[in-house]
């Protein structure tokens, strides 16, 4: 099975930035329903700042790339998503280190490290109606697929499906973390904005890492 290069990871980030740009009004709209109407704007501001560092980032090793993404998100996004996605990439970078390519199995570990960072920072569990509801099943599906010998393409496609399922599962939930939790029962019936942007993260991966 072929490895994933630093250039592909950079393409992933670029692709994600493009998805965010396209979906930013939708993400903000989701956040207006159960949050404070800024998730799209937050993510867009962050990833536009990442793109502005293209010259530095596209020639970096994978650890440096992820660290660059992390620091940029942390210093430009603010809000819950800035801290959380920032932490995700920061932890991912420590796992990727100075490598310039990752095996699909390495990538699973990198994703798991990132997820662990988010959970440590945000203390959300499955069912709290957060990005974790999409992120955790997606990573699990990806790893199981890779571990059972399926192709990277298959694994990423399963990750996307799992993320989408996870996102769908957030709809009926009553939020227990983040701003949406202030709504109590009224948060039910809406998809979680962060879980929605997480689906885009995996969709971007499927579109750029193979």
């Amino acid at each position, binding site marked *: 099975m072929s490895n994933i290069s630093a250039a592909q990871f950079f393409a992933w980030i670029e692709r994600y930035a493009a998805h965010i740009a396209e979906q930013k009004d939708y993400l903000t709209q989701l956040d*207006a329903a159960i949050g404070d109407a*800024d998730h799209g704007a937050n993510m867009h501001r962050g990833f536009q700042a990442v793109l502005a560092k293209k010259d530095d980032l596209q020639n970096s090793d994978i650890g440096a790339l992820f660290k660059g993404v992390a620091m940029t998100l*942390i*210093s430009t*996004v*603010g809000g819950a998503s*800035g801290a959380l996605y920032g932490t995700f990439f920061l932890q991912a970078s420590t796992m990727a280190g100075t490598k310039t390519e990752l095996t699909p199995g390495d990538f699973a570990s990198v994703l798991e490290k990132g997820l662990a960072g988010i959970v440590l920072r945000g203390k959300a569990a499955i069912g709290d109606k957060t990005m974790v509801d999409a992120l955790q099943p997606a990573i699990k599906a990806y790893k199981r697929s890779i571990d059972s010998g399926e192709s990277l393409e298959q694994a990423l496609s399963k990750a996307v499906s799992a993320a989408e399922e996870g996102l769908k599962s957030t709809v009926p939930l009553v939020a227990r973390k983040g701003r949406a*939790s*202030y709504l*109590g029962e009224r948060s039910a019936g809406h998809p979680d904005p962060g879980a929605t942007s997480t689906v885009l993260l995996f969709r971007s991966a499927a579109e750029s890492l193979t």
Partner: protein
Amino acid sequence: MKKLINSPENVVLESITGLGAAFSDLIKVHTNPNYIIRADAPVKNKVALVSGGGSGHEPMHGGFVGRGMLDAACPGAVFTSPTPDQMFEATKAVNGGKGVLHIVKNYTGDVMNFEMAADLARAEGIDVEAVVIDDDVAVKDSLYTAGRRGVGTTVLAEKICGAAAESGQALKEVAALCHKVNANGRSMGMALTSCTVPHVGKPTFELPEDEMEIGIGIHGEPGRTRMKLKSADEITEILLTPIIEDLPFKAGDEVLLFVNSMGGTPLLELFVVYRKAHEILTKSGVKVTRSLVGPYITSLEMAGTSVTVLKLDDELTKLWDAPVLTPGLRWGG
């Protein structure tokens, strides 16, 4: 969207630039990263107070920087928590060697970003304590959720802790005082209209001409319940009842009554609400000994009000009365 702005991207930067120009005797505005500090910062041998949060709540927090209140404020994008580097730089800029208190409103983003900033500052050897304000009775308090939001009590905590820091108290003491203020303050708000976030361009929610939102937050996030519009007296009662029951406030208590405008509600109406709140408290035997009425923790141009009641004792009263010299709040010599 009808706003006096040039562009949604520049509104925060241009606004704090204006703030700095208007009050250059009291504050200094640093940009990139954005933070506002006292003109005389760092004040040697004084605990420094740093707060911050999304913009759109003016005068909070930038307008509360100055002698007797905050040493620094970090304005985020509109309704978005500031970033750790803003808080970290501000913390360094105002640290006078006696440690820094972060006063954080309880929103996931604010809490996490302030935690990251505190980690960075501690790594540089700065003594940092953080106190999270969570006084909004509209939200159910629970260990299993993000908990209550931080609203009106934040303003009172910044004033009172600012006075304590000015008087020479140590970091641990000021932090304990901040917890005490938080423990004794309760708030609840309501909206008549939605606000419009500049970069969104349309109202965050739609509220029919004959309805209001009760238990609203300060970010246009939906409240506890939506109901038919009522009279000012009825609304005041709806806001005050859960506040009184929650602490609970009881006969004999002395309190500070803070009636806040969400931004679009003018003083004429605010004093109608104040009048009724004062009457309800007085009738329950609670004595209003201090008051604050005006737009102090706002939600852009949202019309509506929030009521905060803080139980006072001699210590809090004395610190409340102490001189304060900031763009948004000033009294005393």
